[in-house]
């Protein structure tokens, strides 16, 4: 019929038509120039997401250099302080923004600190889209959790099992012929179990060494240590109230209305404070020093009357980037100090104790400790 259009040629033509119809829209963005590439919204394929993740982790070489986001922005939950915002924070921040915004902050960063660190990233717009895709996924999946360490628990369980088996063996089944083996096992596991129970039991509710990472990376080393801000400038109610108080945001804004850049954190942390203040939302600090409910403790009594310095109980706060609880705040620790600390009779608060003062001056008693003026009365703290 038609010599030109035989079956083979028709097939080729149809295939060409099909390809042009299908492929051109899909790869249409490639045809356009780089700037408008972000304005085309397209869903990412699975391989793009994988590439985005690999880019994030620095596994892709771009002109002999890799950009490794995860090196500075934690992908895994951590208990040590990292001055950079973690991957989840940056992902959340850029979730509502477009890929072109991400492109700007990566390739043309504005802030001083950002400009220092986001240097010479060889990323094409394509790559940025893929990284953004990975980050959007990260918002849903969150940071990777570390598995809890339970060696003590497993040891305890093994010891209990051994104890029980040994006990039943000794009394009932008598599988092991020599009873002294059982006795040794019983003794050793029994000691371990008792020790663990006692030590863990007493340690229940106490948390020495507790140093949680706070929502805003506030460093006492910078503020109290370098800048030498007085403790009572922020924690003013320590002198008059039972709680020392966490400063309200208007105190932070006294300086940070002007100071917007941190040396190590850039604008990321301070901007959290500013935005919280502007949106009238309190910052949700994690309380580090917690006493159980049955204990009453008054800062005013210790600070104003007792003239105890902050560092005596809270450790060298001015050297801490992240506040950690140095003392276990147990009753024994409190009582130790009350039994040994001497009172200074120049302090107006102790003028009532004339009898003790006289006897101390005369030399009849060589020290007057807090316990002698009622510091270890049960009802003072447990009422």
């Amino acid at each position: 019929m038609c010599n030109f259009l035989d079956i083979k040629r028709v097939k080729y033509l149809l295939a060409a038509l099909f390809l042009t119809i299908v492929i051109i829209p899909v790869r249409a963005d490639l045809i356009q120039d780089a700037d408008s590439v972000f304005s085309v919204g397209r869903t990412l394929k699975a391989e793009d997401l994988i590439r985005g993740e690999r880019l994030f982790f620095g596994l892709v070489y771009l002109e002999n250099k890799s950009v490794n986001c995860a090196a500075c922005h934690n992908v895994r939950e951590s208990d040590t302080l990292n001055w950079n915002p973690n991957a989840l924070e940056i992902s959340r921040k850029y979730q509502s923004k477009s890929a072109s915004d991400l492109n700007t902050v990566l390739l043309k960063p504005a802030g001083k600190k950002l400009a220092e660190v986001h240097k010479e990233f060889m990323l094409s717009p394509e790559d940025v889209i893929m990284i953004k895709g990975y980050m959007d996924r990260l918002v849903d999946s969150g940071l990777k959790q570390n598995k809890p360490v339970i060696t003590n628990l497993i040891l305890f369980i093994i010891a209990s099992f051994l104890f029980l088996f040994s006990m039943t063996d000794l009394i009932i089944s008598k599988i092991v012929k020599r009873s002294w083996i059982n006795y040794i096992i019983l003794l050793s596991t029994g000691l371990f179990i008792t020790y663990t129970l006692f030590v863990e039991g007493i340690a229940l509710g106490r948390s020495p060494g507790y140093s949680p990472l706070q929502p805003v990376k506030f460093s006492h080393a910078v503020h109290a240590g370098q800048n030498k801000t007085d403790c009572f400038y922020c924690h003013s109610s320590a002198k008059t109230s039972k709680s020392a108080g966490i400063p309200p945001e208007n105190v932070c804004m006294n300086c940070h209305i002007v100071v917007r850049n941190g040396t190590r954190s850039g604008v990321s942390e301070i901007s959290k404070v500013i935005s919280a203040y502007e949106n009238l939302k309190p910052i949700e600090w994690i309380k580090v020093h917690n006493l159980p409910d049955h204990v009453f403790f008054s800062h005013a009594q210790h600070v104003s009357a007792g003239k105890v310095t902050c560092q005596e109980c809270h450790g060298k706060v001015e050297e801490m980037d992240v506040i950690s609880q140095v003392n276990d705040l147990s009753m024994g620790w409190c009582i130790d100090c009350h039994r040994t600390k001497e009172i200074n009779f120049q302090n107006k608060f102790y003028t009532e104790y004339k009898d003790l003062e006289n006897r101390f001056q005369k030399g009849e008693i060589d020290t007057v400790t807090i316990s002698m003026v009622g510091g270890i009365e049960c009802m003072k703290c447990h009422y």
Partner: protein
Amino acid sequence: MEKNGQNPDKLDKPASGYDKMKEMDKHNQLLDELESGGVLRQGTSRRDFLKVLGFSFASAAVLASCKRPVQQALPYVIQPPEVTPGKSLYYATSFFDGHEYGSILVKTRDGRPIKIEGNDLSLFNREGTTARVQASVLSLYDDARLKHPAIDNNQASWSEIDEKVISELGKINAEGGEIVLLTSSIISPSTVKLIGEFGAGFKNFKWVKYDAVSYSSLLEANSLCFGRPVIPDYNFQKADIVVSINADFLGAWLSPVHFIPAYVSRRKLNNGEKNMLRHIHFESGMSLTGANADIRKRLKPSEERILLLDLYNKIAQKKGGEVFPATVYKEDLSDLADKLIASEGRSILVSGTNNLGIQLIVNGINYLLGNYEKCIDLNNNLNIASGIDSQTESFVNDLNSGKVKALLMYNVNPAFDYPDSQRILSGIKNTRLTVNMAVTLNETVGKAKYECPVNHYLESWDDAEPVQGQLSLSQPCINPLFNTRCFRIHY
């Protein structure tokens, strides 16, 4: 005892003695075997073993993996300068719920009232409070409080309600229909004035004061005797003898928190005083006041009038007043009468019964004894209650006859505490417009078309005049918790 599932009693009894012995030997052998430590085939030991195992496992798991919950500390965003976290702020305000008055100090923490005590600078009640006042701090946080306005029990907005009520009131007023404002006693001079101005805008406006606990007979008796429908102030500190007949003035009658300091000052001989206030009490029930009396006698309610009339007669005989024909009380009251006359002018006789006749006799006795100059003060009267029963009664009649076209209720619960609450409920159906303004859910809530909740007294600005001439103010101690409005704004 069963061993190996065999009951020894059921063992085949051997025929001969030798066989019996052999059986016993076998029996004993089994026993020996078991006692030497063979495994007991009883299920309980395995169960115990598992129980102990499970418990130790669980406790170990709990000990090792229980994490202490994270505690957070949220500071203020902008801290008010007067607030110190951990320290309480005290606000002076006044309590009046339509029934009792108190000048109080409210202790607040972090902007929330937590405790109420009497204001010791107050002339009215010093540091005293009553149970109602103490409990009122909890009624602020009551979950049963009305949280938002409603029309026909559906949540509505204030602007909607305002529009509808105002237009409806306008229509009713144009027709000259009766508009009734039913409230409990109001002691706030500003509110009284405001209600007057409100009512002046209508052709046919009536303000009915309804007290759940009514002192109406006191008011009416004083109105008949002295021309002033007031409750007098009783100055116990000026009296030498108090005779109380069913009046629990230290417990719940009128204003105990006001009477107690005066009473106590004359009972405690702290400053070298030589004579005490003598307290004689007749009552039908048991009360704290009766327990404090020097002489307390039991009284049947039916005998109260007889007692009073007899006492009146005895006093009148001595004093030369008119003697009425009456039955004599079962006891001889001449002694009491003599005591009263001996301290005439410095005595108080009170009765807590809400009966006009009885109150008239009480007034008569007090008048004969000349108590009205000093001990019973009609000029600086107590403004605790002003509801007259007869007015309430006629209002309810009007309600049922359909005369009342609009009913605005404030701080009343007639569906519960009016004696014939069915008449109230049926009467409400005859009205065209009903508005209820209340704080907490009660029996009357839901019966009116428009439900406009008001602020709790701890959220309101207010004033009060508990005793004529003594003014007091009320300030809020917390921002309004719910979508409620001050009563006065409704005007």
